[in-house]
């Protein structure tokens, strides 16, 4: 058995008893433990303030937990050095509700930036960027700036940026929160396709329709705790 196959037997993400308390307030995360396998599609649902986004921030090491640890491929991400942290983040594609595109860069440059950060050559960038933009149906908007794109197009561009470095994990934090039903459907289909191609996807959402159409694992959070974890779950709040 190869190393890759062996490591794919272990979960890609393991969250061990993570607690996060901001100042003196109630815990945003209260003893959360979960694991996500390679190639899995996991939806995390819950009311606003349930702790979904905080959990994703912990996974991205955007914030550090008050207690507990998170392992990515069996490595504690909070023990990574700065350079290793950059490498770790390049293995994750991130999609946000508010898109978080670079406003002064064109669609091409937004994606090229992620590739440049990963140390890719100019030739790779020239060939891969148009290709990935075609994949999300933005081939004709390659030189447009984000403010010239609609909400759905911005989110597709954000997804293109998230997948261009072929990450092991895509994290989508309420990606359909600002979109109409048609665009929501498109984005979900793209995420499904990414997962079908072998990338692990973690999705947080408020959208009942999205969760039920996926028919994958659903984790329900409430007050910073995991209250349900169904392998083929439904939206139950």
């Amino acid at each position, binding site marked *: 058995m190869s190393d890759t196959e062996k490591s794919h037997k272990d979960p890609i993400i393991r969250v061990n008893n993570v607690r996060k308390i901001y100042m003196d307030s109630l815990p945003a995360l209260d003893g959360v433990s979960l694991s996500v396998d390679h190639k899995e599609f996991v939806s995390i649902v819950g009311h606003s303030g349930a702790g979904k986004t905080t959990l994703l921030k912990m996974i991205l090491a955007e914030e550090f937990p008050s207690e507990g640890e998170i392992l990515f491929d069996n490595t504690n991400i909070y023990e990574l050095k700065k350079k290793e942290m950059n490498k770790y983040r390049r293995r994750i594609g*991130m999609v946000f509700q508010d898109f978080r595109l670079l406003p*002064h860069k064109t669609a091409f440059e937004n994606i090229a930036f992620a590739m440049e950060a990963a140390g890719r050559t100019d030739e790779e960038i020239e060939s891969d960027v148009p290709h990935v933009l075609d994949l999300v149906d933005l081939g004709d908007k390659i030189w447009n700036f984000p403010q010239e794109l609609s909400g759905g197009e911005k989110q597709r561009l954000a997804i293109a940026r998230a997948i261009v470095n072929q990450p092991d994990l895509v994290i989508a934090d309420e990606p359909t929160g600002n979109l109409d039903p048609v665009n929501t459907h498109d984005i979900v289909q793209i995420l499904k396709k990414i997962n079908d191609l072998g990338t692990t996807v973690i999705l947080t959402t408020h959208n009942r329709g999205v969760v039920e159409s996926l028919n994958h694992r659903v984790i329900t959070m409430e007050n910073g705790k995991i209250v349900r974890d169904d392998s083929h779950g439904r939206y139950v709040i």
Partner: protein
Amino acid sequence: MFWTDTKRIIKTGFVSFWRNGVVTAAAVLVMTVTLFVLGSLVFLDAMLDSALGQIQSKVDINVYFTVDAPEDAMMAMKDSLEALPETASVDFVSRDEAVAEFTRKHADDQLILQALNELDDNPLGAHLNIRAKETSQYESIARFLDSENALSSEGAGIIDKINYFQNKTAIDKLSKIITSVDALSFAILIIFIIISIMIVFNTIRLAIYTSKEEISVMQLVGASHSYIRGPFIIEGMMYGFTSALFAMVLFYPVTIWLGPFTEDFFGGTNVFDYYVDNFSQMFLILILAGVVLGAISSFLAIKRYLKL
């Protein structure tokens, strides 16, 4: 990879400078005003230096020798004065030159000239005109002369009069004024440099503040700190460079306009002539100040957003 990254950083810096139109315009405007003030201080300092230099050059002390002072003793004193570290120049005026100078000075005063002609012998002694490097050094030169006179041959001094002691109060006062003006202009320069640094730093901090979301996204896609920071530093340097250009261009009409006033006020030094003569030096000072300030400010300002 290093060269590829460097090329990308420089390109991104230039493109951002161009695309962030409003932020760039605001930063360049503030930096232009700041560099203009700094440049004006350099001009003012130069004007003051030249005015003080002119005043200083008018101050000297004269050593009048007795009529019968032997020439070799006077020349020996001239040589020993020239050897002093405080001395800038020593001119020897012989008895004949002294009387010629006296005649020229009083060419319109027939009475004095007649009186001079009545005399059998030249009544004027030779003298030395001594200039010190600094006005404060005249006293030590005068002291040296005093001691030299006391030690001179056979106890009889060859020096008739040193006019330093008559002019001492005026020279001392002038010396104090020059030292105070020098210190004051230096203090003002330092204060303005500190204020300029603070203004530029805050302007760039605001410019970078508008990009803080972008910086966090760049970190989340795994860009290294130096790769994120680089274009902002280039942009800061561009602000400084462009502002220095604008400030230099702005000085052209301003110095033309102020030229005649400065000529009257500072005793013959025209600020426009100074601007033209020292153009490359001024340009270099402003560009260096702008570029270095821009780079350092950007480096420090972005630091607080690179915490993820």
